[in-house]
């Protein structure tokens, strides 16, 4: 029942992800991007950072790392796959999630705590939360501005695949509360099945009060719970 935290060259939030998951009682292990077999893991996290320097386009080169075939396979079998920040960008590039992430509206990196409102709970990220919950979580990205072609956007809106939207502390979703220009204030999405989810702000940075907030736990707890009921793909785990 171990969670794989994938490390690409240039990833930098891997230890933070392990730290937060461990606080929640999960077992988490770093997995180098050259690994091709993730069968023994009950869930996968693609953590934040700058995989392959984020050169060309964020996530573009990482998507071809050897590990990504196994990530795709795990996603197809219904295992929980969570992308945080750079992980979000990689999942989009890999086609596991719709849309893309581009430069922030103000063309500047943004590091600050923001608020997000929970929009749907049928996903591995939000299952422990309630629709309407307002969470305070640090955002930390240059390319956090979500876009999608109109038909994709309409589809994910209609399917309830938007998990989190940027809002103010009262839960109001408005332009003023949009820190990076993201379309429809989108801060997190999932695939249609709900087992692949990604979030732009960093829940692992909001898992302890001494660091300013523990609201991120409500998201990570859902993910950890999902890994416990995750479909098993090898005989050892199934026994």
């Amino acid at each position, binding site marked *: 029942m171990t969670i794989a935290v994938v490390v690409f060259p*240039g990833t930098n939030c891997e230890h933070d992800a392990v*730290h937060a998951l461990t606080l929640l009682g999960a077992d988490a292990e770093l997995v180098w991007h050259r690994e091709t077999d993730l069968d023994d893991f009950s869930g996968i996290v693609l953590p934040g950072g*700058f995989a392959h*320097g984020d*050169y060309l386009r964020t996530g573009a080169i990482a998507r071809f790392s050897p590990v990504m075939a196994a990530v795709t396979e795990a996603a197809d079998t219904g295992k929980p796959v969570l992308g945080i920040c750079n992980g979000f960008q990689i999942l989009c590039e890999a086609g596991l999630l719709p849309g893309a992430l581009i430069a922030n509206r103000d063309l500047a*990196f943004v590091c600050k705590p923001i608020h997000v409102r929970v929009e749907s709970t049928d996903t591995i990220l939000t299952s422990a939360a309630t629709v309407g919950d307002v969470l305070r979580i*640090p955002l930390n990205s240059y390319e956090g501005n979500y876009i999608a072609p109109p038909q994709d956007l309409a589809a994910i809106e209609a399917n309830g695949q938007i998990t989190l939207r940027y809002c103010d502390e009262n839960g109001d979703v408005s332009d003023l509360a949009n820190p990076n220009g993201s379309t429809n204030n989108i801060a997190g999405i999932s695939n249609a099945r709900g087992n692949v989810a990604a979030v732009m702000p960093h829940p692992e940075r909001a*898992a302890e009060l*001494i660091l300013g907030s523990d609201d991120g736990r409500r998201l990570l707890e859902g993910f950890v719970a999902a890994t416990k009921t995750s479909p098993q793909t090898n005989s050892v785990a199934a026994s």
Partner: protein
Amino acid sequence: MTTTSEIPAHIQLGMTDDEYAGVVEILGRTPRPAELAMYSVMWSEHCSYKSSRSHLGRFPSEAPWVVVGPGENAGVVDLGDGWLAALRIESHNHPSFVEPVEGAATGVGGILRDIFTMGARPVAVWDPIRFGPLDDAKNRYLFNGVVSGIAGYGNAVGVPTLGGEVEFAEAYAKNPLVNVMALGLLKKEQLVLSGASGVGNIAVLLGASTGRDGIGGASILASASFDEESGAKRPSVQVGDPFEEKKLIEACLELYDRGLVVAIQDLGAAGISCATSECAANGGMGMDVDLDAVPVREPGMTAGEILMSESQERMLAIVEPTNVDAVLAVADKWEIHGTRIGTVVEGGQLTIRYQGETVAELPAASLSEDAPRYNRPAQRPVSIDELHAATLPLPDSVDVATTLLTLLDDPAIADKSWIYRQYDHQLFLQTVIEPGHDASLMRIKGTTKGLAVSTDGDGYLCAMDPLRGGARIVYESALNVAVTGATPMCVVDNLNFGNPENPEVMWQLIESIEGISQACEALGIPVVGGNVSLYNQTDDVDIYPTPVVGVLGYTATLPDQPPRLDRGEAGMEVFLIGGPGGDDLAASAYARVILDARAGRPHDVDHDTGRAAIDLATRLAHAGVPVLHDISTGGVAVALAEICFASDVGATIDLATWQQAFSEEPHRLLAVVPVGFDWSEHLGGELQAIPLGVLGGNDLSFGTFGTVPLTAAHEIWKSAIPRRLGH
């Protein structure tokens, strides 16, 4: 008119005739071109500290907790329980003026290498920076570029930037200052030094390939003054690659973890020539180096170009022959180059071969140890006495509230979040107090320990009195870390000065060193490292004398709830902690911004009061006081406003004179406490806690000295920097 070819090579390289004669004497012959290039760079001001070396010995540098003092790549101090901290500060002033984004970025890259060269994982960066006023487009361009360079590199390399400072003055318009401080953490057994011991050991070059980056950059950019033509002699710009550095950090940390290297040295100024000679000299050895093995980025590079290249993101590891394959495998895993380029040999000779020829053959130690030392003349400027004798044209009465609004709009006083929002300051889950407070406070994960850092300088103050200014910045920095609950432990310093051939600049340098030293001695905190940046001069105008210090504070146990600016609540009481007085305005922001006048002698430090204030602040932080804030730029009025903005609550305070609102006399702080707080068990000696008023309401009210709505003041303070940048 002389053409370039008539000018002797050593002069073109910035060497004097005497220095050249010294080289000839060491070698016993005329130097080869590559040798001359090596001496010229290694003996430049930037690498050899030839004008400042004789004065740096003044700094106190010893304490029981110092593991590595000045001289190595970074200072190292003992935090107990096997933990060490490595710290260092560096300047990248001239490169940032030529190309702000890459100049600042490569400054971050360089300081990080100094840290992980010691075996430490770099965990935080600070960026004290200085520019000309923001009403000029060029200054805005430089400021913007430097901040995005630091953000771009620091964020991507995965090291959080936890603070810094910024000053704006005409004196920096043609010579911005970009200093970077870095901190690393390591366990005792991971400490690595740079001496190459063991005949037959192999020198392995790790990291990026070598191109024609910044050839001669160290000497040309850092040791020569600028004039309007410097655009023409721009050497090629060094481009930073944070991705390469990230891989290099992880690879090196793995090498240390597995005990695979004997010694390691980063490649900075003068690239391979500096790293090989220092590694050899520090171990009392020689080295044979084969330049053909060096992976190059461009075809047709000459030996001199490869030797002197300042391509970024490279390290030189000294490895026992049996470990070479393992080292190369680690390099391969992390997708960086790993190449054997040399062998450690008996005797002190450094021999460099390229394409079948010996291009250099010299005593390795001569490049550093035989570098010239100058005792340049120093002269106290007459004008400084006139300045001290003059008096500020103070009005009889002042509306403190409206004056405060003008001060809050000064970019050096205003909200700095436009800067630090662009920096990842939360990575590693260690940031307990983020930028925006007096000092940033970090926890060491898995322990109860905390570290606090503040960087401080004040060119305006030091220009008026470098001795007192030097001492005051140390006290301010120490007080900043104390309000988080940490005890000041050690200092790194960056001495940014003008042309040392100007005796008045030498005087400023010597006075500043004296002031810093006296304060450090009084506080019992050693200087464990530093950097000297001279020739900060353009068109014959020297910058303000600008020493910058970074103080590291330590606490074995973090306070349960460390004081924060945003923990004030309506009903809490505001006290001023300090000694008597508190109305002198010399070298204050009031004089600078409101009067635009320089007069009077800045108030001196008082070592007893200073120590007492720092000690008290540390104790109050652990006693649960919700807000502690040192009084610095802008005085009591600005310090109070900052608390009110962060806590989103107004205040009403009473002052005896309007001057007390703006005085910046040292060793004072504000404390916000719940009603009925018992001061008696904390105070003693020369310190008093003077009740000023209470928090509450929606205004900042100074009684008879005026009132302003909190939101209006807050808006001005918040928007001052972004508004000037057109955001």
